């Protein structure tokens, strides 16, 4: 694969992203990233019987961010929460037949967004899951004097 080329699967998910949109009656929403850093994502889940019954996303980011999130929603839809918690970046990207190396960075948010949605879901139910907690994100630095420090 040449430097800047996406696999067919990435292009397919980018041009026909699955599970796009807001979810009015979501059980939990995870948002991650920051527009100032060029990447932002929002993941909404509906949970039934400890399974992800439905999932929706919206992404401000490049094609690989969109495709990775789309693929992720396809993978976890119908899975148990436990299975979803264990999802790894590798699983998503290998299902996309890989990503150009420079684009790996942009694909990391998807899995993080899912974790945060799960964290928020448990939290609402009084369960603390620090292992799923959002990392201190760049968003918190936005208003510092030095301007945003995106990672």
């Amino acid at each position, binding site marked *: 694969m040449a430097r800047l080329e*996406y696999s067919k699967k990435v*292009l397919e998910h*980018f*041009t026909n*992203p699955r599970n*796009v*949109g807001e979810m009015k009656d979501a059980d939990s929403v995870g*948002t991650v990233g920051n*527009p*100032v*850093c*060029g990447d*932002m*994502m*929002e993941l909404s889940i509906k949970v039934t019987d400890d399974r992800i019954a439905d999932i929706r996303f*919206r*992404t*401000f*980011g*490049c*094609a690989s961010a*969109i495709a990775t999130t789309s693929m992720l929603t396809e993978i976890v839809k119908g899975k148990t929460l436990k299975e979803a918690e264990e999802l790894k970046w590798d699983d998503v990207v290998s299902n996309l037949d890989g990503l150009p190396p*420079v684009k790996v*960075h*942009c694909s990391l948010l998807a899995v993080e967004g899912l974790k945060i949605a799960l964290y928020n879901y448990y939290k609402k139910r009084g369960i603390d899951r620090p292992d799923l907690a959002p990392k201190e994100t760049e968003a918190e630095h936005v208003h510092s004097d030095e301007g*945003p420090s*995106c990672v």
Partner: protein
Amino acid sequence: MNRVYMDSTTAMPVRPEVLEVMLPYFTVHYGNPSSIHEDGKMPRMAMDDARGHVAGLIGASPEEVVFTSGATESINLALKGALYAGREGRKGIVITAVDHRAVTATAASMERKGYFLRELAVDHYGKARLDSAMDLLTKDISILSVPFASGEVGTHQPLKELASLAHDVGALVHVDLTMSALMEPFDVRSFDIDLATLSSADLMGPRGVGALYVRKGVRIEHLLSGGGHERGLRSGSENVPGIVGMGEASRIARERMGTDPPMVLSLRDGLISGLTQIEDSYLNGHPTDRLPQNANIRFQYIEGESMLLLLDLNGISVASGSACAQKNLEPSKTLISMGLKHEEAHGSLQFSLSPYTTKADTGRVLDVMPGIVEELRKLSPLTGR
């Protein structure tokens, strides 16, 4: 259906009539111009002609034209050459915030070698500010480098004023004509310029050739040592077919200066007015004081690489200032220095036209773009926030 190419800032085709003129110099008149024998004659004469055409395009004398391998080399030669020549111990270089990376990286590399670097601020159109120039141009500056216009957002620079301020403190003035030479007449004398960079590829000539104008009497150090070609300023056996091509491209550019640019400008203006009718979409750079071929538009809430790819799938080639479209994953420095937010830089696309652009081409873009913006905005968590 033919593709629509709107990325002329990144690459342009060679004019077929230019290629035609080059061809014999690959296989028939392949001699070395320095050869005393018959086989040196045609290449030598062709090179002399080419030098004349390149000089003619910018009002220089042929002896003031040094052929190089391209704009990047010309810029390196101008800036490093001036600093290394060490005029009266001057150690400073001043560039603008909207220079191409060939300029910024060259200046930065000299900073690492003990020279100092200052950058002119620009206004929100991307035009260098004269008050900044008055502050930064001091007696220890060796050279000021400024593009004729920002290649990215197209805004013209106040070259005459900057050149005069630089000369007031005894600094040399280098102008990067890479993006403007095809579409804007230029005269080194009337702008009072010491060094000027030209790129063959951006004149619709072959890649791998460029030129540096070195005003008579201006002393710079060479970068490439060797056989002493180009009056010692650029060694290496001359790329004759390339030089012939650059000469012919310069000749044609000059000949068509009255016809191509107005046509391109009119198509470009149609494109700008059509694209900015899309909701929350704005022109970057100056509305009128800009390169005729450039339309840089930002579409709020969405990201440039995604737009670029969807346009690509629709058969349209453009460039983007988005970080996601850059090798270094940083948003366009030009856009940021104009005061755009990162997310706005992210949503910027650069449409660059050429003399080959047609009304059908701009029409296709105007047909396709609204749908792409709409689709991506549906995906965006920022829309309507």
